[in-house]
């Protein structure tokens, strides 16, 4: 009678850009894939995102940025997660991320960066393969 463990995802848009079509679409894609997706909306600070991940006991934090703030915001989220002891949370990013920034983000602890045109089933597979404890 035990209920199936479901992957819990926080979808967030850090910073000030107002373009959330991609983030909203992905939130739906993840839900369609059987995940439980908490959509936190626009203009999130790294502190707000990490607090949500903590309270929701998230497996994954998905960050979307189209305004060029990823080099600050993405690593900051990873850092704060570590501070709170949430080392096992998988952080993935997407949006408009220049190729030359990807290596730096990965080094900072962002597990994967998905640019425009990435197949959604590829993203789902990456998450399913890489979350801990399942």
């Amino acid at each position: 009678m035990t209920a199936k463990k479901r992957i819990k995802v926080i979808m967030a848009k850090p910073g000030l850009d107002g373009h959330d079509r991609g983030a909203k679409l992905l939130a739906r894609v993840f839900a369609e894939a059987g995940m439980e997706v908490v959509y936190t909306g626009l203009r999130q600070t790294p502190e707000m995102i990490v607090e949500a991940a903590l309270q929701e006991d998230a497996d994954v934090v998905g960050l979307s940025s189209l305004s060029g703030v990823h080099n600050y915001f993405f690593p900051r989220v990873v850092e704060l997660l570590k501070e709170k002891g949430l080392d096992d949370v998988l952080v993935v990013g997407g949006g408009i991320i220049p190729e030359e920034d990807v290596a730096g983000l990965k080094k900072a602890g962002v597990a994967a960066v998905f640019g425009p045109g990435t197949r959604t089933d590829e993203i789902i597979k990456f998450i399913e393969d890489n979350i801990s404890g399942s």
Partner: protein
Amino acid sequence: MDDLVAEVLQGSVRAMARLITLIENEDSNALYLMAAIYPYTGNAYVLGITGSPGTGKSTLTDKITSVLREREQTVGVIAVDPSSPFTGGALLGDRIRMQRSSGDAEVFIRSMATRGNLGGLARTTADIVKIMDAFGKDWVIVETVGVGQDEVEIAKTADTTIVVLAPGLGDTIQSMKAGVMEIADLYVVNKADRSGADELLSQVNVRVEQDSQIKKAAWQAPVVKTIAVENQGIEPLVEAIEKHRSFLRQSGKLRKNRREKTRQETLALLKDEISRNVLEKVLGNGRFDDLIDEIVAHKKDPYTSVQEILSKIFPEE
């Protein structure tokens, strides 16, 4: 496992979040963990917020939480949204409307998917309320899924139930029907600046008046007007909630209602355990399928067969 409960009682937010996940997943240790939590429950006041989709439940929850925080109360929020019956996934969007509260570390917000449960809540919501209660939250606010007419489970969990209405969703007859309209300790007419709000307000007032003529009750549900996004009417709403709370306390109803809730919960738990145990025995030995073959062949009938199975498991009866 014991450590986890101890950490929750010591105020670890991380431990509480993890414990909630275990209970939500109906982990094999769930009963054991809840047994450890139970002695520390009974202190939080539980507020239920229900209503149709789009009436403003999440925004109201956020604003009520702010007023409670100004009064130096700590708050836990459980926001329930539906799971897809097709994929099992869920899009939990209530947190978006709770931006003010979600920046406050003293407010713990947890989104829950219904995971197939009907009735407006998840199967384990009442247990999650207990965890937040044991953690030490003064208030636990439970926001149901957007309900239609029939989802009244919240009234079994909350001390005070608020039914949120908004103009433009139906005529007088809607406000006379059974179901959700019957469980309100308090009505909110939200989006009160929209056209049709005054009509709705008077319809609900008529319903309340009819209720008082049909059956004598010590409490008459007040109807409060709000414009949640503009933070209007929230203080009077919290006052009305406090008034209901005092009424419950002074009339002895709080204790009586909670006893009845405990009775229902214990009964439900007992039913679950009985059916789990019985089904394990019945389905465990493989003979059930043989029985089905006999029933299909009309050598036996299902009605007598069920009685026979039970008399083997419970020989006294």
